[in-house]
């Protein structure tokens, strides 16, 4: 992309992206605690604001105001900020709005998966800095899980790209519409299976329950072991919440209609200042919907061990993705009446 185009791209795609990510993250945090409490027969947050709506903000303020009690090595301090790099890189390639992601390139739809991998691998370095053994184990498990999640994720995106005809965000976006029947996930059985595989891969890649052996074996354990608190802990928690949201945005962009609005509304607001917020609103609602589904799944299922999660990735998800791709190609060849 021409560097001279960047200010224009930032204006058109940057603001909706930032708005979608922050609002989506905020509400997914609130919903996580609310739904989690409801599933566990608890009241949940109800003090900060109406229905505890300000609870994520209160938690963030509490985190920022905490001070660190245990010292850290210099190397560990670098890794805290280093994991921001793949995260920001990932943000720049996720679609948020009708204009697609900040970075438009051929095969760009695969980029978030590779950057998600980088994100997990920086986590490995971070966990390796932990002086306690648990931290090392947790980080190694997370990095290995993200590696096992990458092949099925890439294959499922490939199926969507092949259905749309190209591996570019703009083409994928153009192949979908506002109604669920016009989404790629529901265009044929293969993309539907691919969308499920992609979501499961995301849960694996970021070690979300049930693919974490227990709630305490999550990445937050590493932070506790490192004695991290204050703004650094807030940053780590935010980045570990942002990464799955980015993954959700990719799933929505690829399989669930992206930011498409009804054609009538689209033509009405085209070119006006309303276009950005309207598309962001659609994305936020879809992100929240997806997070609700994932939260219910992760909160109700008992956790599995890392080796079981690996087995699931290598023996179930990857073969399922390969078979889906093969049958999709065969079916499309049969129905198109010839070879590719």
């Amino acid at each position, binding site marked *: 992309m021409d560097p001279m185009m960047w200010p224009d791209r930032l204006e058109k795609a940057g603001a909706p992206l930032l708005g979608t990510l922050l609002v989506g993250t905020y509400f997914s945090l609130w919903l996580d605690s609310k739904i*989690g409490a409801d*599933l*566990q*027969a*608890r009241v949940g947050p109800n003090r900060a604001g109406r229905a505890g709506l300000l609870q994520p903000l209160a938690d963030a303020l509490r985190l920022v105001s905490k001070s660190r009690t245990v010292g850290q090595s210099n190397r560990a301090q670098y890794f805290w900020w280093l994991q921001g790099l793949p995260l920001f890189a990932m943000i720049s390639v996720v679609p948020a709005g009708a204009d697609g992601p900040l970075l438009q390139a051929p095969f760009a739809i695969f980029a978030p998966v590779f950057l998600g991998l980088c994100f997990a691998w920086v986590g490995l370095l971070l966990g390796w800095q932990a002086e306690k*053994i*648990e931290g090392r*184990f947790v980080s190694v*498990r997370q990095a290995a899980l993200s590696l096992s999640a990458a092949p099925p994720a890439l294959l499922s995106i490939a199926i969507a790209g092949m259905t749309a005809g190209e591996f570019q965000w703009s083409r994928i976006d153009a192949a979908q519409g506002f109604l669920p029947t016009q989404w790629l996930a529901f265009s044929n059985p293969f993309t539907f299976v691919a969308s499920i595989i992609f979501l499961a891969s995301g849960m694996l890649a970021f070690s979300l*329950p*049930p693919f*974490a*052996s*227990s*709630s*305490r*074996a999550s990445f937050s354990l590493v932070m506790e072991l490192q004695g991290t608190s204050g703004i650094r802990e807030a940053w780590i928690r935010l980045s570990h919440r942002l990464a799955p949201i980015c993954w959700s945005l990719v799933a929505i962009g690829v399989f669930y209609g992206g930011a498409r609005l009804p054609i009538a509304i689209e033509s009405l607001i085209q070119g006006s200042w309303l276009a950005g917020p309207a598309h962001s609103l659609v994305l936020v609602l879809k992100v929240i919907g997806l997070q609700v589904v994932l939260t219910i799944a992760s*909160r*109700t*299922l*008992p*956790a*599995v*061990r*890392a*080796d*079981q999660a690996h087995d699931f990735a290598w023996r179930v998800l990857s073969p399922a993705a390969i078979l889906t791709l093969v049958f999709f190609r065969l079916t499309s060849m049969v129905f198109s009446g010839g070879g590719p």
Partner: protein
Amino acid sequence: MSTRVGRASEQVSARLIEWTVGPFHAMLPGPMKLSLRLDGEVVHSAAIEAGFARRGIVSVMKRCTWSQGVAVMGRLDPEAAIFGEWVFCLAAEKALGLEIPERARAIRILLAELSRVSSHLHQLALVARSAGAEPVFHFMLREREAVLDLLELVSGSRHSPGFLRFGGVREDVTEGFLERLQEVCQRLLERISEYNDLLTYNEAFVRRVSGRAIISRNLVARHGISGVPSRVFDRGQDLRWREKSGYELVQHQNLPANISSGAPGDLHQRFVLKLQEIIQSGHLLQELSQHLPAGPHRIGGDFSRIPAGRFFAEVEAPRGRLDLELHSNGGTTPLDLRFNTPSQPLLAALPEFIVGAPVEDLELALASLDLQIGEVDQ
């Protein structure tokens, strides 16, 4: 220390990692130090060190009068305090030659079974939490709260009833207690099926725990482990259903002879058996609350001195068999006490039990052991 695998020409050397957990760690069942040697993520060998929660119960008991001793005995196992009181009272009553009234016996059984349900629910909740099943953890604690409410209603205390007396119980049951007990039991029995759907027979849970954390028949025999781990192999290992145990008042509800899922003595079998015992206790409580014998709840008399001698009593506590040997010189305080608590053999078997377990399963395995460090450290 290193392990070598393979032929001499192409050896793989793996250094064992040493990891000391505790004495205070969320994973542990109480204050104790667990020194592990790990081969990768698998426990290669383990050593334990206990004694961090020593309260000197025997020393305190020796300074207490006989009646004061009942309350102190409740501290033996804070999760099921009534059993400490009960075994002490049984031993003293044996010395005094007391035959307690039927109503008092029934009230003791009511409290004991409530404590058993509470203790089992607490332990299963810990297993559920360790397995990442947070909703089941909260549901089980919710049911336990209802049971503790009942204990509070009858004794005034949720955890340390101090309710038993030589010759009976402190007071008769509170008005409305029996009706509420029936309600709670009915609800509990209905909800057990929810737990089964959510966790017990959930494919992910069964796959995770089947064949894991095994307490084998051999381990049970060598360490003298009692309670649920031994009953997995032999349902007859329950003191409640033996003659003169006091449980003649109720009909024995037979448990299924086998558990179809899991490997012999594994975590899943113990989990299922505990749930079955909760159901059994629920039915027992319902039956007893409908037909509570009439009569006095206590025998009066002066029990400030116990005849000289050694007296033995045993009860089936939630964790297993609780034995007490009471020494008296005919004075106003006990001369000596010796306990055999169910957690002692479990702790002795722990290093052997966790060898081969992956680090990820350690918390789950330790939670499944149902170990009360307070009982060991006394």
